[in-house]
């Protein structure tokens, strides 16, 4: 009888797929969809990790990036930092296991989020070149340095250690990674060069040394010794939670009472709020959390959304600050005028976030093309999928004409301007795992627009003053050209000699010049 039941037959084919196998087939989801982008992604993942590590250790980051071209489509990428290093036992897991990380379960502003990035790079290397990834790490000058060569067992999603040696490394602490991949090196807006430059702008406390495949050496030196504000970890805010997540929290909690659970697992819930939530859900404050059934959890979930709760604390954020953003812009972009703004924190779906804007105008910036938009999330440049990003929508929906730029309809404005938009949040809502575009939340778009308007107004004051000054100067120069004309007209009208009149008017111009220039100043 059993042979005829289809389900049995199907069951034979059904088996667990490992995350690594999934990646093998879906590498575009993580941003490794073409050789050019893959090269950028590997550098990006390594540099993001280095910066996060340095921030955690509270050292000023010094990061060296080198890309060596082995042959036409093979590159060796070396990234070395002065971070805390990684203890021996953790190295294989961090680099050799997908979705292993410290950041996924915490609510705190970080560059990385899922612990997917660097191990995905290792997997990509293995996939395209068959080579292992080399890792050097030292955590203290008193301890030995470690050297690993790793691959990933794609079936089990486990690290496959090929070499594990103690070595001598004359360094106090830090990590170095060498990854060989198939890739392509291009210059331009979506290149590694651009990624490093933008990263340097928004990390003015970091020094980067970059050697590109053409063996050109770039140094981006730090302009401040001030470490960024340390982002504090926070508990989730009730407004940002989903039902499934809430159920999982009930399973994991160590609290003995419902009230205790609410107060300890969420931010902004105190005694009074906890009691109100319970009574609204018709539950007792001393109910045992583990004994609640799904129906009761659902009631509690509803009540969480209905009770008025304070916005989450914002010290989980680490904005660049307007002052340092301006310093960053000034060192990498040659412009005539800079404006920066850092808004006070706001909230979307219970997640605190803050928007920062920098605008650079004129100077060496291209005049007659669309403005250049630099998008960043948690201090990481977003180079791809500009069209799909909420930042792009906010910029093009802002009316730039009153601010002195050209714009047709809701398109990108035209003018010698670079607009930098940075979103800092404990959880940036990306549209995909490639983390290149921010999702379109109304609260986020609104905040970006407000920040743009604030900077736009300052820009317009500068542009109008600047243009007016230039025009007035040109007009004063015009008198030189008008004098011969007036002299010949007057000569025709009165039969006085043109040359005599011209000479007299030239003299008069010299006398009147200070008044004309004063008039010019007074008009501003």
């Amino acid at each position, binding site marked *: 009888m059993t042979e005829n039941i289809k389900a049995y037959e199907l069951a034979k084919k059904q088996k667990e797929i490992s995350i690594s196998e999934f990646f093998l087939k879906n590498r575009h989801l993580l941003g490794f969809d073409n050789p050019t982008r893959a090269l950028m992604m590997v550098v990006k993942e390594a540099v993001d990790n280095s910066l996060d590590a340095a921030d955690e250790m509270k050292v000023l980051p010094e990061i060296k990036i080198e890309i060596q071209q082995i042959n036409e489509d093979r590159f060796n990428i070396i990234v070395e930092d002065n971070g805390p290093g990684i203890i021996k036992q953790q190295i294989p897991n961090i680099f050799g296991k997908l979705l292993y990380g410290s950041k996924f379960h915490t609510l705190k502003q970080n560059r990385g989020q899922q612990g997917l990035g660097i191990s995905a790079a290792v997997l990509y290397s293995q996939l395209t070149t068959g080579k292992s990834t080399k890792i050097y790490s030292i955590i203290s000058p008193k301890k030995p340095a470690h050297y690993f060569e790793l691959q990933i067992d794609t079936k089990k999603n486990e690290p496959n250690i090929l070499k594990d040696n103690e070595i001598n490394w004359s360094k106090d602490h830090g990590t170095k990674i060498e990854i060989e991949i198939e890739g392509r090196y291009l210059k331009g807006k979506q290149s590694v060069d651009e990624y490093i430059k933008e990263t340097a702008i928004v990390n003015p406390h970091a020094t980067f040394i970059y050697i590109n495949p053409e063996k050109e050496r770039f140094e981006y030196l730090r302009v401040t010794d001030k470490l960024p504000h340390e982002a504090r970890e926070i508990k989730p805010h009730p407004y940002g939670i989903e039902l499934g997540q809430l159920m999982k929290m009930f399973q994991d909690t160590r609290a003995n009472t419902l009230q205790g659970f609410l107060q300890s697992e969420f931010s902004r819930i105190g005694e009074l709020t906890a009691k109100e939530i319970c009574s609204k859900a018709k539950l007792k404050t001393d109910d045992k959390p583990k004994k609640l059934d799904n129906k009761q959890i659902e009631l509690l979930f509803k009540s969480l959304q209905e009770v008025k709760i304070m916005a989450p604390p914002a010290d989980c954020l680490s904005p660049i600050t307007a002052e340092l953003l301006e310093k960053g812009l000034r060192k990498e972009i040659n412009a005539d005028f800079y404006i920066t703004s850092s808004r006070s924190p706001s909230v979307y779906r219970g997640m605190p976030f803050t928007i920062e804007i920098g605008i650079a105008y004129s100077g060496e910036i291209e005049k007659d093309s669309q403005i250049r938009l630099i998008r960043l999330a948690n201090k990481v440049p977003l180079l791809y999928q500009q069209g799909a990003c909420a930042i792009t929508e906010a910029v093009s929906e802002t009316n730039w004409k009153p601010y002195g730029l050209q714009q047709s309809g809701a398109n990108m404005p035209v003018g010698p301007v670079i607009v930098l938009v940075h979103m800092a949040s404990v959880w940036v809502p990306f549209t995909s795992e490639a983390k290149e575009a921010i999702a379109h939340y109304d609260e986020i778009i609104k905040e970006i627009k407000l920040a743009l308007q604030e900077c736009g107004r300052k820009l317009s004051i500068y542009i109008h003053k600047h243009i007016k000054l230039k025009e007035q100067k040109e*007009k004063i120069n015009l008198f030189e050209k*008008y004098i*011969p*004309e007036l002299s010949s007209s*007057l000569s025709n009208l009165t039969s006085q000699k043109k040359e005599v009149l011209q000479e007299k008017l030239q003299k008069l111009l010299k006398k*009147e010049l200070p008044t004309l220039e004063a008039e010019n100043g007074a008009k501003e």
Partner: protein
Amino acid sequence: MVQKNKSINKLKELGEKVIKDIDKNKNPNIIVPIRALSNVVFNERTRTLEIGDKTSTRYFFNIAHAKKFLQTIEIASILKKELLETGKHEHLRGVFYITKRTIPNTNINLVDDQIESDKIIEDLEVITGLSREELHVSANKMGSMAGNITLIDSGDIINCSKLGKGGYSIPSITDELEFKKVNAKYVLYMEKAAIFERLIEDQFWKKNDALLITSQGQTTRGIRRLLQRLSEEEKLPIYVLCDNDIFGAYIYSVIKYGSIALSHASERLTIPNCKYIGVTCDDVIKYDLKKHLIKLNENDLARIKQVSQYEWFKNNKEWQRQFKLMKELDGKVEIQALATKGISFISEVYLPYKIKNKEFLE
């Protein structure tokens, strides 16, 4: 000849004044009377619009004034040298082209648009006190005359009773026309050339001893001057026939009292004793033209409000009554609507009745 020399001297005086400033080491300037509603006065005694005594001073060494200053002197020199001294006339458009050129070593044109040169010519009129005609500048001619009148135009004798359906084409400058023989009881001026043709076909002027004059839309200066001369020199009553709308009322107002833009020339152009013959709101009611009303739009309503508050209309009870009726009827009627009573209704019934019963608006 005398007038021509007077004009040349006036322009020359302007230039000499500027040179005097230069010699005194002063910023050269020209004083220009202001031509705007703020500087227009309604003279109750002469019942015309006059220019007030507000002036503005145009300096050469001033960023905002320099180009206009240059334009003023340049156009003055063109009028003197190219027109007055050669005895030739030129149209506004022609003056624009003579003036238009690029200032050497710049990308700036002395004038970009005819509006600019037209304004400067009006400025020169108020600066010198000379009319545009006296400066030998003409505008497009846009009018015709028919009736029992013989005149001399540039030496040609013209009998306006023998010129067929088109009539005599009125030149843009009518100061120099000579009236040889006039045989008419009144002048009928109409806004619409189509009505002019209708009346000629109906032999209206022969049957009624009338002079017929028309222009398309706003009345040109040449026609206003001609009407004024017929009124003053030949003592003919002037009757004005317009559409029953606020724009018709304003055409009448300009002929009678003068216009804001040309308030400086009122003395030579206005006809304070001319009369409005129609079409009135009362006609609309009397002849049952209500079904031909065109609904008033926002623009009409705004203009009614504006015109009814002009000083020269403010205390005119008859006209205030008309403005009120216009709003009540909420519509306007063209002269041609009278044709619905019969093609020749206007020449056989409407006009003769009005003239016989002296049914006019002041």
